[in-house]
């Protein structure tokens, strides 16, 4: 019966990875609900962005304290996961510390894992204090209640528990302690348990081992529901992020076609549209719901870490307006999730639910408060562009609903009639010269 743990382990592993794969599929399906967008240009610049911003954390360290702590947790997370490989092999084949046969290098490896584990533990505690005791402003904005607030803390607790389990596991592992190599930290924890009989120690060691790996599998599956998806999506997101000057907004191609037709004196406006032209005209200008956005914008929404760096630099938010670029991203993700669930519940077809991103999630007041200053885009550590969503929604309001604020309508009428945003005569455009 000694193989029962191996079977249990294999089952847990299959279940954990299987659920995760299922969620990843759902995630990709939801992202693909977005419109197509061409991101095939400037490949080398995109790779460089990914290497610098996601792997190199170049934007994180713009805020030195949070950045430094984040780098520790991030490096710790990646490196300690090497240990997971050993756990998986041990678990499947009933071995114990299979890699220890590589000799002294093993000690060096585990030793550095232990040091990292302590550093991660300390960083995570500091993160918790910043959030809950110091109450740094960006973590306490109005969109950060209920789930978003708890989510952030759950992850911190998770990390604390996982790191503690890892250290306890090592400390109560008698053969490992006897090797006396690599137990840089755990040798100081071992004495706390030294009065216990060997069998109890073994039980503690096994429990810590099991809880550690089960915890990691749970964590993996928690990601999909959490802002912690960014640990995976930061990579594609920084790759697909904009490589244009921040001030360059897209020119809507569908509009270009119509404007060209309008301006072309050779086109007969009453002629029947050419074959197939009907299908070429899009149903809609701008965005009122998530399916109108492009898939990179939807990827953005899933990648958002809810850190609020964007909001803390937003001039509208800083002056008490309702607009918060973080909320724009959170709303987009929430609505996308809702649409995804709707599709799941209706055999793969979206059933009209009488709701949309506009008004039901993002209000017009928020959209019109934006100055298009790009501070949010600049601040985001994972290349998210909240501004592009705001702009697409304004486009819908103006071009589909003619629902701009009155003053803006006046401004646009002036441009249309006399080529300037104010009611001056086009013929007076050079008068300044002689004034």
């Amino acid at each position, binding site marked *: 019966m000694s193989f029962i743990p191996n079977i249990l382990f294999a089952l847990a592993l299959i279940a954990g990875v299987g659920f995760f794969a299922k969620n990843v599929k759902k995630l990709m399906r939801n992202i693909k609900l977005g419109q197509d967008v061409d991101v095939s240009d400037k490949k080398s610049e995109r790779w460089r962005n990914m290497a610098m911003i996601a792997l190199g954390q170049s934007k994180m360290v713009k805020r030195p304290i949070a950045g430094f702590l984040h780098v520790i947790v991030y490096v710790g997370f990646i490196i300690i996961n090497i240990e997971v490989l050993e756990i998986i092999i041990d678990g499947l084949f009933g071995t114990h510390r299979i890699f220890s046969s590589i000799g002294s290098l093993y000690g060096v490896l585990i030793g550095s894992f232990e040091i990292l584990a302590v550093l991660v533990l300390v960083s995570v505690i500091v993160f918790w204090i910043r959030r809950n005791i110091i109450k740094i402003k960006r973590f306490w904005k109005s969109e950060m209640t209920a789930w978003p607030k708890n989510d952030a803390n759950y992850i911190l607790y998770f990390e604390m528990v996982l790191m503690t389990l890892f250290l306890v596991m090592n400390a109560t592992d008698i053969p490992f302690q006897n090797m006396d190599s690599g137990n840089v930290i755990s040798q100081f924890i071992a004495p706390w348990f030294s009065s216990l009989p060997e069998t109890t120690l073994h039980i503690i060691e096994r429990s810590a081992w099991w809880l550690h790996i089960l915890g990691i599998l749970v964590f993996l599956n928690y990601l999909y529901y959490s802002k912690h998806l960014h640990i995976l999506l930061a990579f594609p997101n920084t790759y697909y992020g904009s490589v*244009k*000057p*921040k*001030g*360059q*907004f897209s*020119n*809507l191609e569908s*509009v*270009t076609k119509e*404007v060209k037709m*309008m*301006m072309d004196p050779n086109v007969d406006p009453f002629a029947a549209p050419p074959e197939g032209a009907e299908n070429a005209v899009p149903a809609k*200008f*701008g965005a009122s719901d998530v399916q109108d956005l492009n898939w990179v914008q939807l990827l953005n929404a899933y990648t958002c870490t809810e850190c609020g760096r964007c909001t803390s630099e937003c*001039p*509208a938010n*800083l*002056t*008490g*307006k*309702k*607009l918060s670029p973080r909320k724009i991203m959170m709303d987009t993700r929430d609505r996308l999730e809702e649409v995804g669930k709707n599709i799941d519940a209706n055999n793969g077809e979206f059933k009209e639910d009488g709701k949309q991103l506009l008004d039901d999630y993002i209000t017009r*007041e928020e959209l*019109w*408060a*934006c*100055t*298009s*200053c790009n*501070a949010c885009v*600049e*601040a985001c550590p994972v290349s998210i562009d909240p501004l592009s969503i705001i*702009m697409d929604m*304004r*486009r*819908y*309001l*103006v*071009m589909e609903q003619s629902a*701009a*604020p009155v*003053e*803006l309508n*006046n*401004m*646009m009428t002036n*441009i249309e009639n006399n*080529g*300037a*945003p*104010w009611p*001056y005569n*086009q013929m007076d*455009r*050079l*008068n*300044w*010269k002689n*004034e």
Partner: protein
Amino acid sequence: MSEQLKVPTMQEAMAEGRQPDYLFWVGSAGAFDDRAKKITKAFVKLLNKANVDFAVLGIEESDSGDAAKRAGNEFLFQMQAMTNIEVMNMYQVKKIITTDPHDFNTLKNEYPGLGGNYEVYHHTQFLKQLISEGRIKVKESEFKGKNVTFHDPCYLGRANDVFEAPRALIETLGVNFKEMKRSQRTSLCCGAGGAQMFKEPEKGDKDINVLRTEDALETNPEVIITACPFCNTMMTDGVKAKEKEDNIQVMDIAELIADAED
């Protein structure tokens, strides 16, 4: 301005069979806004002084469409853009200079996709070039030794990564320059962008231009320097809201250079 400005139009140049090196894009603000017109003239004075071969479109120029685009009216933007492109391509325009960062941005980044391909310079970049070529000489000015600060226009700085040119110009003035806490990449908007200039702000607890003016006041300036007609309006209003207009001037970098030029 006492001396007569030379402001040839593209049409006149064409009639004389000339092809000017540069088009000076005046922009709607530069042509119609009372404060911005002074900046336009200060800049033309410098162009004349440096003997730059330029022309304007005059009554053939129409609004760039920037504000319409940021307000969400892509139709109106593209109509404006294509109308302007048609005119500029007819005159075979190659290089453009403008004093408005919003028009700079849209001409440089958004017109190419609609058939308008030009080399576009903001006046801060162009003036820097003229100075380095020795075509403009900056002499003693009444501003020498004064405390100044610089407000980065969003559409010049963050949007197009032009941070250095305005600072290089300020350096030539012999002033006592101090950066605001939020500057360059993390500069705070004046509140005018995204078509906000043309509407009342949404409900909040402060106006953005007042917050930005407070940033500027922290540096204890005698002059707040800008490089955008809209920033200029916003900061001027902010200074007034703080009742500091007797002690603090808001000026465009072109005006300071024009004043210091011999």
